[in-house]
Protein backbone atom coordinates (compact mmCIF):
# COMPACT_ATOMS: atom_id res chain seq x y z
CA UNK A 1 0.00 0.00 0.00
CA UNK A 2 2.81 2.40 0.92
CA UNK A 3 4.74 1.42 -2.21
CA UNK A 4 1.63 2.07 -4.31
CA UNK A 5 1.20 5.48 -2.68
CA UNK A 6 4.85 6.40 -3.27
CA UNK A 7 4.64 5.18 -6.87
CA UNK A 8 1.54 7.25 -7.57
CA UNK A 9 3.15 10.29 -5.91
CA UNK A 10 6.28 9.97 -8.08
CA UNK A 11 4.08 9.68 -11.17
CA UNK A 12 2.10 12.76 -10.11
CA UNK A 13 5.30 14.76 -9.49
CA UNK A 14 6.67 13.73 -12.90
CA UNK A 15 3.38 14.83 -14.49
CA UNK A 16 3.58 18.22 -12.72
CA UNK A 17 7.21 18.70 -13.80
CA UNK A 18 6.22 17.95 -17.39
CA UNK A 19 3.16 20.22 -17.26
CA UNK A 20 5.13 23.18 -15.91
CA UNK A 21 8.46 22.49 -17.64
CA UNK A 22 8.37 25.76 -19.56
CA UNK A 23 7.78 29.06 -17.73
CA UNK A 24 4.92 30.94 -19.36
CA UNK A 25 5.92 34.42 -18.28
CA UNK A 26 7.61 36.55 -20.93
CA UNK A 27 11.32 36.54 -19.99
CA UNK A 28 11.98 40.26 -20.26
CA UNK A 29 15.06 41.95 -18.83
CA UNK A 30 13.46 42.90 -15.47
CA UNK A 31 12.06 39.36 -15.05
CA UNK A 32 15.45 37.74 -15.73
CA UNK A 33 17.17 40.24 -13.41
CA UNK A 34 14.65 39.63 -10.58
CA UNK A 35 14.96 35.85 -10.83
CA UNK A 36 18.76 36.11 -10.91
CA UNK A 37 18.84 38.31 -7.80
CA UNK A 38 16.40 35.94 -6.08
CA UNK A 39 18.66 32.95 -6.83
CA UNK A 40 21.68 34.82 -5.45
CA UNK A 41 19.72 35.88 -2.35
CA UNK A 42 18.59 32.33 -1.62
CA UNK A 43 22.09 30.91 -2.10
CA UNK A 44 23.41 33.55 0.33
CA UNK A 45 20.76 32.61 2.89
CA UNK A 46 21.55 28.92 2.54
CA UNK A 47 25.26 29.71 3.02
CA UNK A 48 24.45 31.67 6.21
CA UNK A 49 22.31 28.82 7.55
CA UNK A 50 24.98 26.23 6.76
CA UNK A 51 27.56 28.43 8.53
CA UNK A 52 25.30 28.65 11.59
CA UNK A 53 24.75 24.90 11.56
CA UNK A 54 28.50 24.18 11.28
CA UNK A 55 29.37 26.61 14.09
CA UNK A 56 26.67 25.04 16.27
CA UNK A 57 28.11 21.60 15.64
CA UNK A 58 31.58 22.89 16.49
CA UNK A 59 30.50 24.02 19.96
Amino acid at each position, binding site marked *: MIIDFLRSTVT*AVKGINQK*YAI*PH*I*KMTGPVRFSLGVLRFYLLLLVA*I*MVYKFVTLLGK
Partner: protein
Amino acid sequence: MNILSKLYYRYKKILKTMRLYLLIAGPGIIVMVADNDAGGITTYTVTGAQTGFYLIWFLILLGPVAYYVQEMTVRLGAVTKRGHAEAIFHSFGAFWGWFSLLDLVLVDWLTMITEFVGMTAALSIFGVPPFVTVVLTWILMGTMVLQGRYWTWEKIALIFCALNLIYIPAAFMINPPVHQILHGSFIPQLPPGGFTNALFFLLMANIGTTIAPWMVFFQQNAVVDKGMQEKDMLWGKIDTAVGSFLTVVVAAGCIILTGTLLPGQNINDAATAAIRFMGINKYVGAFLAIGLFDAGFLGAICISLASSWAFGEVFGWAHSLNHKLKEAPWFYAYYFFDLLLAGTVVLIPRAPLVLITLFVQVIAVTLLPATLVFLILLLNNEETMGEYKNTRFQNIVNIGIVALIIVVSTLYGISALFPKILGA
Protein backbone atom coordinates in the same frame (compact mmCIF):
# COMPACT_ATOMS: atom_id res chain seq x y z
CA MET B 1 -42.93 64.59 -0.67
CA ASN B 2 -40.16 65.00 -3.18
CA ILE B 3 -37.55 65.20 -0.40
CA LEU B 4 -39.03 62.16 1.30
CA SER B 5 -38.91 60.10 -1.87
CA LYS B 6 -35.32 61.20 -2.50
CA LEU B 7 -34.36 60.23 1.06
CA TYR B 8 -36.10 56.87 0.64
CA TYR B 9 -34.27 56.30 -2.65
CA ARG B 10 -30.94 57.11 -1.00
CA TYR B 11 -31.73 54.85 1.92
CA LYS B 12 -32.53 51.97 -0.44
CA LYS B 13 -29.36 52.63 -2.43
CA ILE B 14 -27.19 52.61 0.70
CA LEU B 15 -28.93 49.44 1.88
CA LYS B 16 -28.30 47.78 -1.49
CA THR B 17 -24.63 48.84 -1.42
CA MET B 18 -24.23 47.49 2.10
CA ARG B 19 -25.83 44.18 1.09
CA LEU B 20 -23.53 43.89 -1.90
CA TYR B 21 -20.51 44.62 0.29
CA LEU B 22 -21.56 42.04 2.89
CA LEU B 23 -21.95 39.49 0.09
CA ILE B 24 -18.43 40.06 -1.21
CA ALA B 25 -16.69 40.89 2.09
CA GLY B 26 -14.68 38.11 3.64
CA PRO B 27 -11.23 37.20 2.31
CA GLY B 28 -9.73 40.65 2.98
CA ILE B 29 -11.09 41.00 6.52
CA ILE B 30 -10.27 37.39 7.43
CA VAL B 31 -6.68 37.48 6.16
CA MET B 32 -5.96 40.84 7.75
CA VAL B 33 -7.46 40.04 11.14
CA ALA B 34 -5.81 36.60 11.09
CA ASP B 35 -2.55 38.44 10.48
CA ASN B 36 -2.85 39.39 14.15
CA ASP B 37 -2.24 35.75 15.05
CA ALA B 38 -0.77 34.44 18.30
CA GLY B 39 2.72 35.61 17.27
CA GLY B 40 1.37 39.02 16.25
CA ILE B 41 -0.46 39.55 19.55
CA THR B 42 2.73 38.60 21.41
CA THR B 43 4.71 41.15 19.37
CA TYR B 44 2.20 43.93 20.11
CA THR B 45 1.96 43.20 23.84
CA VAL B 46 5.77 43.19 24.12
CA THR B 47 5.92 46.44 22.10
CA GLY B 48 3.40 48.11 24.43
CA ALA B 49 5.19 46.96 27.58
CA GLN B 50 8.62 48.05 26.33
CA THR B 51 7.80 51.31 24.55
CA GLY B 52 4.42 52.46 25.91
CA PHE B 53 2.40 54.39 23.32
CA TYR B 54 5.40 55.81 21.47
CA LEU B 55 5.16 53.41 18.49
CA ILE B 56 1.41 53.45 17.74
CA TRP B 57 2.08 55.81 14.80
CA PHE B 58 4.45 53.21 13.36
CA LEU B 59 1.73 50.54 13.46
CA ILE B 60 -0.70 52.93 11.77
CA LEU B 61 1.84 53.24 8.91
CA LEU B 62 1.96 49.44 8.61
CA GLY B 63 -1.78 49.30 7.79
CA PRO B 64 -1.37 50.72 4.24
CA VAL B 65 1.74 48.53 3.76
CA ALA B 66 -0.34 45.40 4.37
CA TYR B 67 -3.15 46.76 2.19
CA TYR B 68 -0.95 47.45 -0.83
CA VAL B 69 0.54 43.95 -0.80
CA GLN B 70 -2.73 42.10 -0.22
CA GLU B 71 -4.66 44.19 -2.74
CA MET B 72 -2.47 42.70 -5.46
CA THR B 73 -3.67 39.18 -4.57
CA VAL B 74 -7.29 40.31 -5.05
CA ARG B 75 -6.56 41.47 -8.60
CA LEU B 76 -4.45 38.43 -9.42
CA GLY B 77 -7.05 35.97 -8.11
CA ALA B 78 -10.04 37.70 -9.69
CA VAL B 79 -8.39 37.99 -13.12
CA THR B 80 -6.49 34.69 -13.44
CA LYS B 81 -8.90 32.52 -11.36
CA ARG B 82 -5.77 30.73 -10.16
CA GLY B 83 -4.31 30.29 -6.70
CA HIS B 84 -0.87 31.69 -5.99
CA ALA B 85 0.98 28.34 -6.03
CA GLU B 86 -0.43 27.40 -9.42
CA ALA B 87 0.29 30.89 -10.73
CA ILE B 88 3.97 30.49 -9.75
CA PHE B 89 4.21 27.01 -11.33
CA HIS B 90 2.55 28.23 -14.51
CA SER B 91 4.52 31.44 -14.90
CA PHE B 92 7.97 30.59 -13.52
CA GLY B 93 8.21 26.84 -14.10
CA ALA B 94 8.56 23.76 -11.93
CA PHE B 95 11.77 24.77 -10.07
CA TRP B 96 10.35 27.96 -8.54
CA GLY B 97 6.99 26.25 -8.15
CA TRP B 98 8.34 23.39 -6.04
CA PHE B 99 10.56 25.77 -4.07
CA SER B 100 7.56 27.95 -3.17
CA LEU B 101 5.20 25.06 -2.45
CA LEU B 102 7.55 23.05 -0.24
CA ASP B 103 8.79 26.15 1.58
CA LEU B 104 5.19 27.24 2.15
CA VAL B 105 4.26 23.84 3.54
CA LEU B 106 7.19 23.92 5.97
CA VAL B 107 6.65 27.53 7.10
CA ASP B 108 2.90 26.99 7.48
CA TRP B 109 3.35 23.85 9.51
CA LEU B 110 5.87 25.50 11.85
CA THR B 111 3.64 28.57 12.18
CA MET B 112 0.66 26.31 12.94
CA ILE B 113 2.62 24.89 15.87
CA THR B 114 3.16 28.40 17.23
CA GLU B 115 -0.61 29.05 16.88
CA PHE B 116 -1.32 25.91 18.93
CA VAL B 117 1.24 27.05 21.51
CA GLY B 118 -0.62 30.38 21.78
CA MET B 119 -4.03 28.71 22.05
CA THR B 120 -2.97 26.20 24.73
CA ALA B 121 -1.21 28.95 26.73
CA ALA B 122 -4.31 31.16 26.52
CA LEU B 123 -6.79 28.54 27.72
CA SER B 124 -4.43 27.22 30.40
CA ILE B 125 -5.04 30.57 32.14
CA PHE B 126 -8.63 29.35 32.67
CA GLY B 127 -7.36 25.96 33.86
CA VAL B 128 -8.05 24.13 30.57
CA PRO B 129 -5.41 21.40 30.00
CA PRO B 130 -3.46 21.65 26.69
CA PHE B 131 -4.81 18.27 25.52
CA VAL B 132 -8.42 19.51 25.81
CA THR B 133 -7.56 22.74 23.97
CA VAL B 134 -5.90 20.89 21.11
CA VAL B 135 -8.76 18.39 20.72
CA LEU B 136 -11.35 21.19 20.97
CA THR B 137 -9.51 23.10 18.23
CA TRP B 138 -9.35 20.03 15.99
CA ILE B 139 -13.10 19.49 16.38
CA LEU B 140 -13.92 23.16 15.76
CA MET B 141 -11.68 23.43 12.70
CA GLY B 142 -12.90 20.11 11.34
CA THR B 143 -16.55 21.12 11.72
CA MET B 144 -15.90 24.42 9.99
CA VAL B 145 -14.57 22.85 6.79
CA LEU B 146 -16.66 19.69 6.64
CA GLN B 147 -20.02 21.46 6.28
CA GLY B 148 -19.23 21.73 2.55
CA ARG B 149 -19.72 25.41 1.71
CA TYR B 150 -17.14 28.16 1.38
CA TRP B 151 -19.80 30.76 2.25
CA THR B 152 -20.62 29.14 5.62
CA TRP B 153 -16.92 28.69 6.45
CA GLU B 154 -16.32 32.35 5.68
CA LYS B 155 -19.19 33.61 7.86
CA ILE B 156 -18.03 31.47 10.82
CA ALA B 157 -14.49 32.82 10.31
CA LEU B 158 -15.92 36.36 10.33
CA ILE B 159 -17.50 35.69 13.73
CA PHE B 160 -14.06 34.74 15.05
CA CYS B 161 -12.71 37.93 13.44
CA ALA B 162 -15.32 39.93 15.39
CA LEU B 163 -14.16 38.20 18.58
CA ASN B 164 -10.62 39.40 17.82
CA LEU B 165 -11.88 42.95 18.42
CA ILE B 166 -12.20 42.06 22.12
CA TYR B 167 -9.00 44.07 22.71
CA ILE B 168 -10.88 47.29 21.98
CA PRO B 169 -13.43 47.11 24.87
CA ALA B 170 -10.62 45.76 27.06
CA ALA B 171 -8.54 48.86 26.24
CA PHE B 172 -11.46 51.12 27.19
CA MET B 173 -12.05 49.27 30.47
CA ILE B 174 -8.71 50.35 31.96
CA ASN B 175 -9.19 54.11 31.55
CA PRO B 176 -6.12 54.64 29.37
CA PRO B 177 -4.46 58.07 29.12
CA VAL B 178 -6.24 59.25 25.94
CA HIS B 179 -4.09 62.34 25.44
CA GLN B 180 -0.84 60.34 25.47
CA ILE B 181 -2.34 57.72 23.14
CA LEU B 182 -3.44 60.35 20.61
CA HIS B 183 -0.01 61.94 20.83
CA GLY B 184 1.67 58.57 20.21
CA SER B 185 -0.73 57.82 17.35
CA PHE B 186 -0.37 60.92 15.25
CA ILE B 187 3.04 62.40 16.11
CA PRO B 188 5.95 60.24 14.96
CA GLN B 189 8.40 59.89 17.81
CA LEU B 190 10.78 57.43 19.40
CA PRO B 191 10.62 56.16 22.98
CA PRO B 192 12.96 57.73 25.57
CA GLY B 193 16.46 56.38 24.98
CA GLY B 194 16.23 56.93 21.23
CA PHE B 195 17.12 54.48 18.49
CA THR B 196 18.70 51.50 20.22
CA ASN B 197 19.40 47.96 18.99
CA ALA B 198 16.51 46.66 21.08
CA LEU B 199 14.15 49.19 19.49
CA PHE B 200 15.38 48.25 16.00
CA PHE B 201 14.68 44.59 16.80
CA LEU B 202 11.17 45.51 17.98
CA LEU B 203 10.48 47.55 14.83
CA MET B 204 11.66 44.64 12.69
CA ALA B 205 9.41 42.24 14.61
CA ASN B 206 6.42 44.53 13.99
CA ILE B 207 7.16 44.80 10.26
CA GLY B 208 7.79 41.05 10.13
CA THR B 209 4.38 40.32 11.58
CA THR B 210 2.63 42.60 9.04
CA ILE B 211 3.14 40.41 5.97
CA ALA B 212 3.60 36.65 5.99
CA PRO B 213 3.86 34.33 2.96
CA TRP B 214 0.69 32.41 3.87
CA MET B 215 -1.33 35.64 3.64
CA VAL B 216 -0.57 36.02 -0.07
CA PHE B 217 -1.42 32.38 -0.82
CA PHE B 218 -4.52 32.43 1.39
CA GLN B 219 -6.18 35.56 0.06
CA GLN B 220 -5.61 34.75 -3.60
CA ASN B 221 -7.08 31.26 -3.11
CA ALA B 222 -9.99 32.60 -1.04
CA VAL B 223 -10.78 35.09 -3.83
CA VAL B 224 -10.79 32.19 -6.34
CA ASP B 225 -12.80 29.85 -4.09
CA LYS B 226 -15.35 32.59 -3.46
CA GLY B 227 -15.70 33.04 -7.23
CA MET B 228 -14.86 36.73 -7.24
CA GLN B 229 -14.94 38.31 -10.72
CA GLU B 230 -13.25 41.36 -12.21
CA LYS B 231 -16.43 43.38 -11.59
CA ASP B 232 -16.21 42.60 -7.86
CA MET B 233 -12.65 43.84 -7.58
CA LEU B 234 -13.55 47.21 -6.08
CA TRP B 235 -15.44 45.47 -3.27
CA GLY B 236 -12.51 43.11 -2.77
CA LYS B 237 -10.23 46.12 -2.38
CA ILE B 238 -12.63 47.79 0.09
CA ASP B 239 -12.79 44.50 1.99
CA THR B 240 -8.98 44.45 2.20
CA ALA B 241 -8.87 48.10 3.28
CA VAL B 242 -11.43 47.46 6.05
CA GLY B 243 -9.37 44.45 7.13
CA SER B 244 -6.13 46.43 7.29
CA PHE B 245 -7.90 49.10 9.35
CA LEU B 246 -9.12 46.44 11.80
CA THR B 247 -5.60 44.96 12.03
CA VAL B 248 -4.20 48.30 13.11
CA VAL B 249 -7.05 48.90 15.59
CA VAL B 250 -6.49 45.50 17.24
CA ALA B 251 -2.71 46.03 17.34
CA ALA B 252 -3.22 49.47 18.91
CA GLY B 253 -5.62 47.91 21.46
CA CYS B 254 -2.92 45.45 22.55
CA ILE B 255 -0.32 48.20 22.84
CA ILE B 256 -2.70 50.39 24.86
CA LEU B 257 -3.38 47.50 27.26
CA THR B 258 0.23 46.65 28.08
CA GLY B 259 1.40 50.27 27.70
CA THR B 260 -1.11 51.33 30.38
CA LEU B 261 -0.99 48.40 32.79
CA LEU B 262 2.50 46.92 32.38
CA PRO B 263 4.80 49.76 31.26
CA GLY B 264 8.49 48.92 31.45
CA GLN B 265 7.85 45.32 32.53
CA ASN B 266 9.82 42.50 31.00
CA ILE B 267 7.30 40.38 29.09
CA ASN B 268 8.15 37.67 26.58
CA ASP B 269 4.71 36.61 25.44
CA ALA B 270 1.02 37.56 25.46
CA ALA B 271 0.05 34.74 27.85
CA THR B 272 2.39 36.14 30.52
CA ALA B 273 0.79 39.56 30.01
CA ALA B 274 -2.69 38.02 30.45
CA ILE B 275 -1.62 36.32 33.70
CA ARG B 276 -0.26 39.63 35.05
CA PHE B 277 -3.47 41.40 33.98
CA MET B 278 -5.45 38.86 36.03
CA GLY B 279 -3.75 40.25 39.14
CA ILE B 280 -4.73 43.82 38.21
CA ASN B 281 -8.16 43.44 36.56
CA LYS B 282 -9.43 39.89 36.07
CA TYR B 283 -11.85 40.86 33.29
CA VAL B 284 -9.11 42.51 31.23
CA GLY B 285 -6.88 39.48 31.84
CA ALA B 286 -9.69 37.18 30.70
CA PHE B 287 -10.29 39.34 27.60
CA LEU B 288 -6.61 39.18 26.65
CA ALA B 289 -6.57 35.39 27.12
CA ILE B 290 -9.74 34.93 25.02
CA GLY B 291 -8.29 37.24 22.38
CA LEU B 292 -5.05 35.26 22.32
CA PHE B 293 -6.92 31.97 21.82
CA ASP B 294 -9.00 33.56 19.08
CA ALA B 295 -5.88 34.99 17.39
CA GLY B 296 -4.21 31.57 17.38
CA PHE B 297 -7.39 29.94 16.10
CA LEU B 298 -7.84 32.45 13.26
CA GLY B 299 -4.20 32.01 12.28
CA ALA B 300 -4.53 28.23 12.32
CA ILE B 301 -7.70 28.10 10.16
CA CYS B 302 -6.18 30.37 7.51
CA ILE B 303 -2.70 28.84 7.47
CA SER B 304 -3.93 25.25 7.21
CA LEU B 305 -6.21 26.21 4.33
CA ALA B 306 -3.43 28.12 2.54
CA SER B 307 -1.32 24.94 2.41
CA SER B 308 -4.21 22.65 1.48
CA TRP B 309 -5.36 24.92 -1.35
CA ALA B 310 -1.80 25.22 -2.67
CA PHE B 311 -1.23 21.45 -2.65
CA GLY B 312 -4.65 20.76 -4.13
CA GLU B 313 -4.27 23.09 -7.09
CA VAL B 314 -0.75 21.92 -7.96
CA PHE B 315 -1.57 18.19 -7.71
CA GLY B 316 -4.85 18.72 -9.53
CA TRP B 317 -7.03 17.50 -6.65
CA ALA B 318 -10.51 18.91 -6.12
CA HIS B 319 -9.63 21.68 -3.66
CA SER B 320 -12.60 23.84 -2.83
CA LEU B 321 -14.43 24.30 0.45
CA ASN B 322 -17.56 23.99 -1.67
CA HIS B 323 -16.75 20.31 -2.13
CA LYS B 324 -17.93 17.63 0.26
CA LEU B 325 -15.47 15.26 1.93
CA LYS B 326 -16.16 12.53 -0.66
CA GLU B 327 -15.63 14.93 -3.56
CA ALA B 328 -12.27 16.28 -2.37
CA PRO B 329 -10.78 13.52 -0.15
CA TRP B 330 -7.11 14.44 -0.71
CA PHE B 331 -7.70 18.13 -0.04
CA TYR B 332 -9.35 17.38 3.29
CA ALA B 333 -6.89 14.58 4.10
CA TYR B 334 -3.99 17.01 3.75
CA TYR B 335 -5.87 19.64 5.80
CA PHE B 336 -6.43 17.22 8.68
CA PHE B 337 -2.94 15.74 8.44
CA ASP B 338 -1.47 19.25 8.81
CA LEU B 339 -3.80 20.02 11.69
CA LEU B 340 -3.21 16.79 13.61
CA LEU B 341 0.56 16.96 13.16
CA ALA B 342 0.84 20.57 14.39
CA GLY B 343 -1.43 19.97 17.39
CA THR B 344 0.36 16.77 18.38
CA VAL B 345 3.79 18.47 18.47
CA VAL B 346 2.51 20.87 21.15
CA LEU B 347 1.42 17.93 23.30
CA ILE B 348 4.83 16.24 23.20
CA PRO B 349 6.50 16.80 26.59
CA ARG B 350 9.61 18.98 26.32
CA ALA B 351 9.13 19.58 22.59
CA PRO B 352 11.63 22.24 21.37
CA LEU B 353 8.98 24.94 20.96
CA VAL B 354 11.41 27.84 21.34
CA LEU B 355 13.57 26.37 18.59
CA ILE B 356 10.49 25.97 16.41
CA THR B 357 9.56 29.65 16.90
CA LEU B 358 13.10 30.58 15.87
CA PHE B 359 12.86 28.31 12.83
CA VAL B 360 9.61 30.00 11.74
CA GLN B 361 11.36 33.36 11.57
CA VAL B 362 14.34 31.98 9.66
CA ILE B 363 12.47 29.77 7.17
CA ALA B 364 9.89 32.50 6.51
CA VAL B 365 12.75 34.74 5.39
CA THR B 366 13.57 32.28 2.60
CA LEU B 367 10.00 32.29 1.28
CA LEU B 368 8.75 35.84 1.81
CA PRO B 369 11.07 37.62 -0.69
CA ALA B 370 10.36 35.03 -3.40
CA THR B 371 6.60 35.27 -2.83
CA LEU B 372 6.60 39.06 -2.99
CA VAL B 373 8.89 39.26 -6.03
CA PHE B 374 6.70 36.74 -7.88
CA LEU B 375 3.64 38.76 -6.91
CA ILE B 376 5.06 41.96 -8.43
CA LEU B 377 6.21 40.15 -11.59
CA LEU B 378 2.82 38.47 -12.03
CA LEU B 379 1.02 41.79 -11.56
CA ASN B 380 3.17 43.29 -14.33
CA ASN B 381 2.42 40.52 -16.81
CA GLU B 382 0.24 42.27 -19.39
CA GLU B 383 -0.68 39.01 -21.14
CA THR B 384 -2.58 37.69 -18.12
CA MET B 385 -3.47 40.87 -16.22
CA GLY B 386 -4.47 43.09 -19.15
CA GLU B 387 -5.96 46.36 -17.92
CA TYR B 388 -5.60 45.22 -14.31
CA LYS B 389 -1.81 45.11 -14.31
CA ASN B 390 0.09 47.36 -11.93
CA THR B 391 0.10 51.05 -12.82
CA ARG B 392 3.33 53.02 -12.57
CA PHE B 393 2.23 54.46 -9.22
CA GLN B 394 1.33 51.01 -7.88
CA ASN B 395 4.70 49.69 -9.03
CA ILE B 396 6.60 52.48 -7.29
CA VAL B 397 4.68 51.96 -4.04
CA ASN B 398 4.70 48.16 -4.17
CA ILE B 399 8.35 47.77 -5.18
CA GLY B 400 9.30 50.19 -2.38
CA ILE B 401 7.26 48.24 0.16
CA VAL B 402 8.55 44.87 -1.03
CA ALA B 403 12.18 46.09 -0.94
CA LEU B 404 11.67 47.37 2.62
CA ILE B 405 10.03 44.14 3.77
CA ILE B 406 12.77 42.00 2.19
CA VAL B 407 15.58 43.99 3.83
CA VAL B 408 13.90 44.11 7.23
CA SER B 409 12.74 40.48 7.27
CA THR B 410 16.21 39.35 6.20
CA LEU B 411 17.80 41.34 9.03
CA TYR B 412 15.19 39.93 11.40
CA GLY B 413 15.92 36.36 10.30
CA ILE B 414 19.68 36.87 10.57
CA SER B 415 19.32 38.45 14.00
CA ALA B 416 17.27 35.40 15.04
CA LEU B 417 20.19 33.19 13.96
CA PHE B 418 22.89 35.46 15.41
CA PRO B 419 21.29 37.36 18.34
CA LYS B 420 24.54 39.15 19.23
CA ILE B 421 24.59 41.01 15.90
CA LEU B 422 22.00 43.49 17.13
CA GLY B 423 22.66 43.04 20.80
CA ALA B 424 18.91 42.45 21.32
